[in-house]
């Protein structure tokens, strides 16, 4: 009740000392659980909000100054927000974009033809947007975002809610288009499939701070302490003392799947091969999705890794002045 009369604002630091650089032509995944500060960072980079302290440069511009010259050179696509006119065919929105971004008519037509055929929506541009499926609409949103030929593309959950086919089509398109145009892309997504298909580098953010910044595969090396071992024994039985090697994930005699500490693998393998009659063996990484889910849920572990991760990330990045994005910011939010 007291809040009715005297409202107290608790400043929440949404992103805290987030610092990273993205090279021109790079495609980087921005990962983190809900509320980690991903969208806040994208909003900072697109000039929607001001940081309380810190600096960010996108294409050499300070985003929150919102220079028109800057706004003509980037695009922000949010999977949960529509930019297209709901009641009009997408081509009307595209035409408006042509005027807003001052794209030459011939160039506009060329881009439109290319994008509509790549995304397979050429026949749909004349239909009111409200009649399109979610997947078709998302593809139209992407076209609208790319018609002015942005050099930086910020994608916030571009495949959210899409079916597997639409999701894959969007992924394939982004991969092709990015490689072709060498645009710089920063992508947030909860679908690890998107990330694995598109990005070599990932930045993991949690509680507003960076946990990891580096190659995607390093996430497994750093955060996954286990590997998966698939064993097939001769005969129809499996030995009953396998638990001493690791956790039994699945057991369908004569096959068994074990989760084993990665540093003990050579020892375990030689031990197994020496003591049992094994027909087939395979060792693989755990799915990235599982590792990241575990990472997000284990707060304390993440916090202890934090300082270490940050210094590694900053130290490993080149700073040769060619970066498309350069961020160092803090953003508190009143809640």
């Amino acid at each position: 009740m007291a809040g009715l009369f005297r409202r107290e604002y608790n400043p929440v630091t949404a992103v805290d000392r987030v610092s990273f650089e993205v090279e021109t032509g790079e495609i980087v995944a921005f990962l983190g659980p809900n509320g980690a500060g991903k969208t806040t960072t994208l909003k900072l980079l697109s000039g929607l909000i001001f940081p309380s302290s810190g600096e960010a440069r996108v294409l050499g511009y300070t985003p929150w100054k919102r220079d028109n010259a800057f706004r003509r050179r980037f695009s922000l696509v949010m999977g949960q927000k529509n930019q297209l006119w709901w009641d009009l065919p997408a081509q009307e929105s595209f035409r408006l974009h042509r005027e807003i971004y001052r794209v030459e008519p011939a160039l506009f037509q060329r881009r439109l033809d290319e994008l509509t055929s790549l995304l397979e929506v050429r026949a749909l541009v004349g239909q009111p947007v409200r009649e399109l499926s979610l997947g078709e609409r998302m593809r139209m949103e992407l076209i609208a975002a790319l018609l002015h030929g942005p050099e930086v593309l910020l994608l916030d959950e571009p495949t959210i809610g899409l079916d597997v086919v639409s999701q894959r089509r969007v992924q394939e398109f982004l991969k092709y288009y990015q490689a072709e145009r060498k645009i710089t892309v920063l992508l947030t997504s909860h679908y690890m499939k998107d990330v694995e298909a598109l990005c070599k580098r990932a930045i993991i953010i949690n509680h507003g701070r960076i946990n990891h910044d580096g190659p995607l595969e390093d996430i497994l090396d750093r955060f996954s302490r286990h590997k998966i071992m698939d064993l097939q024994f001769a005969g129809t039985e499996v030995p009953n003392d396998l638990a001493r090697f690791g956790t039994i994930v699945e057991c369908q005699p004569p096959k068994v799947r074990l989760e084993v500490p990665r540093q003990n693998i050579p020892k375990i393998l030689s031990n197994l091969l020496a003591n049992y009659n094994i027909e087939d063996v395979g060792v693989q990484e755990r799915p990235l999705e599982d590792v990241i889910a575990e990472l997000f849920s284990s707060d304390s572990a993440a916090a202890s890794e934090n300082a270490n991760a940050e210094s590694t990330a900053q130290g490993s990045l080149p700073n040769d002045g060619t970066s498309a994005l350069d961020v160092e910011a803090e953003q508190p939010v009143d809640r």
Partner: protein
Amino acid sequence: MMAQAVRLRWTILKTCVEERLAYRGDFVFGTLVRFLPTVTQIFLWAAIYSAASADPGRKLNGYTYRNMIAYYLLALVSRAFSSMPGLAEGIALEIRDGTIKKYLTQPIDMLGYLFWHRMAHKLVYYAIATVPFVFVFWLCRDYFDGWPDGLTTAGWVASLLLSFLLGFLMEALIGLIGFWFLEVSSLVFIYMMITFFLSGQMLPLDWLPAAITRPLEFLPFKYLAYFPAAVMLHRYTHEQLALELAVLVGWVVVLFIACRTAFALGLRRYGAYGG
């Protein structure tokens, strides 16, 4: 540069007209139905005047029955220019749900865009409402004393165009309060109630006691309905008309600056709500 800017506005206007026409059946029907209360209003005033006196030339607060109907119809025309249904709520909603981001990430000015958007809506409205308006005025032609002189008529046209600007800026300013309060619907309701009375939409302002009308001289509300109607009813001399128009232009300038300032300050506060 200039040609590009004009082309952009033209494209916005054209796109908004097309959007408006997407549900043209509903829009035409709604526009026509809104003329029905006019009939009841005319009967209501007839009842009030006949109850007051049997003399058809009898004046109430300086208005004969004919004057009153003429005023009422002219105030309707004023409001057709100055009312901005949904503008303030629309702005506040875009701030609250985050769709405002499209104006901030694209090289476009939000208030300018909304202005041309509203212009398109008004043009479509006039295209449809002109026929019933002409019909109603033709039916009620006997309530009017004929066209005023050219200068007064020109002043009337100017007052209508300026009342469009004034109405737009006042509502936009209320909508921009959404940067601070997020939810402005009760504020908009209060604004609408105040406007209904203080603009002279319900009653001619000179019907009200001087204690109320005097402060109104220092507020912009009367320009939304009363002023253009009173101009057509010969209530101002040419000198008074020129002075009032100058004050009206002053209000437009002040509100324009207020809107721009509120927008700039609001953006600094903006937290980009809604994911």
